[in-house]
């Protein structure tokens, strides 16, 4: 059975781009357009990994990850932050929130898939 990955990004084009890479590798993909939307769509369903942007309207990525980690069902769900932001301070915020990796856009699909494969839940 294919593993499920959630993509959270306010850019529809970027969700498409990440989705193409993931679906091509055999993953099922669900999408959220910001942190608030993602929390609503998760609704307890099983996801094996979350890829989230940082700067988003309604609820930013750092707040989203903090909220996610407080939910028992997603406490151990690995999160990759995918963002244009490369400042060290922001990375530390992401790490403190509970993210497992920080990827700066633009990403190489092969390397992104390697990171996903490394972190995705069994």
């Amino acid at each position, binding site marked *: 059975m294919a593993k499920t990955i959630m993509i959270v*990004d306010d*850019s*529809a*084009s*970027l969700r*498409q*781009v990440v*989705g*193409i*890479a993931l*679906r*091509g590798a055999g993953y099922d993909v669900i999408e959220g357009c910001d942190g608030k939307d993602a929390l609503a769509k998760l609704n307890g369903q099983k996801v094996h990994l979350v890829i989230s942007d*940082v*700067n988003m309207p309604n609820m930013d990525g750092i707040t989203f990850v903090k909220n996610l980690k407080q939910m028992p069902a997603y406490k151990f769900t690995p999160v990759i932050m995918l*963002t*244009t*932001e*490369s400042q060290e301070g922001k*990375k530390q915020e*992401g*790490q403190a929130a509970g*993210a*497992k*990796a*920080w*990827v*700066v*856009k*633009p*990403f*190489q*699909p*092969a*390397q*992104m898939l390697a*990171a996903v494969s*490394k972190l995705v839940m069994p």
Partner: protein
Amino acid sequence: MTMRANADAWLWMSPLASGGAGVAALLGVSLFGGSGPGGAGVQFALAVAGFATLCAWASAVRQRAALEQLTRQAEDLLGQARQTLRQQSGVAGLEQVCDKAAPIWAKQIETARSQTEEGVTGVAARFAAIVERLQASAAASQRAAGGGDGTEDGCAVAVLSRSEADLVAVNRSMDAARHERAAMVQDVRKLIAYTADLKKMAADVEEIASQTNLLALNAAIEAARAGETGRGFAVVADEVRKLSNLSSDTGRKMAEKAGVINQAISAVIAGTEKFGEEDARQAAEAEQTIHRVLDNFREVAGRLSESSGMLRRESEGIRAEISEMLVYLQFQDRVSQILAHVRDNLDGLHARLRQYAAERSGGSAPEIDAGAWLDEMALGYTTAEQRRNHRDDKAGAASPATPGAMEITFF
């Protein structure tokens, strides 16, 4: 211009007025005391009048100089006031331009951003559809050709394998039937020996019957020689003779039937052997045909598999190309963030301008701290090139949309 004209007229009129007073004093002395006995008084009066006139003249000159200085200062102030008015008028015009233009600029930027986003999203969706269709085509082709391990039931390799097994089984079945028929012929051939035995046995019966007949004849002769007493024995001897004749006929018929059976068996063997040879020839031909068909089928299946492999490789190549293109499509995300930031800044500037205008019309005109404004603007940057542009770093113009190694940090 008017102020300058009034000042000039006043300056020229003052000395004339002072001089007029002196002349009036001189005329008064001349009229009322100049012709009387007090002539010294008149002269004194004249001198006083002249001195007063001189004093008045000097005062007028000083006043004129002071007025000229005041006029120049007034003109300077007036010029400065005009310049200030002109500048204020210009600033007010710029404020109006910004008030009207800033929202338009923000909308234009948002329009460009949203249209680009929509376009790139559409392009990405099309690419996704192409990748999916390529995958489906390659998978279907691989399933049909059995390009992988050939375990798919319906694939050409599996069908070929099953067909070959079925046809070989049919061939073996035909061989087995042929061998069984040959065995049967051998069994039938044994019957010929049995019929030979039967013929010999029939001949023996016939011989025994002949000897029995001869014996019956001798018995009849001996019975006749015995006379009346041998009459019963003569009847018996006659009956034995008849029986021997019957036995002889039966033996002969048996020999004839055995001959017929022998011929029939020989005919069956000959026919069977003939059919067996034909069967063997046809089986050999069928086997050759089967192998030829299977070879043709194998060749077609090989070409199909090769074609499927090529399709799969091409599909993977195209997927790799699309994967590379995906990297370049990510420029939209960066562009969108930069444009959104500029749009938000324009909106902020517009709001600040309105607030400033309201405060100024209320009588206060707070200073705007440009440095603080720019620092706040920099806080909203999300990309490295925005920060480089802010620092006016020339390298900031370079696009980062063509990444080398991806920047990734594992925590």
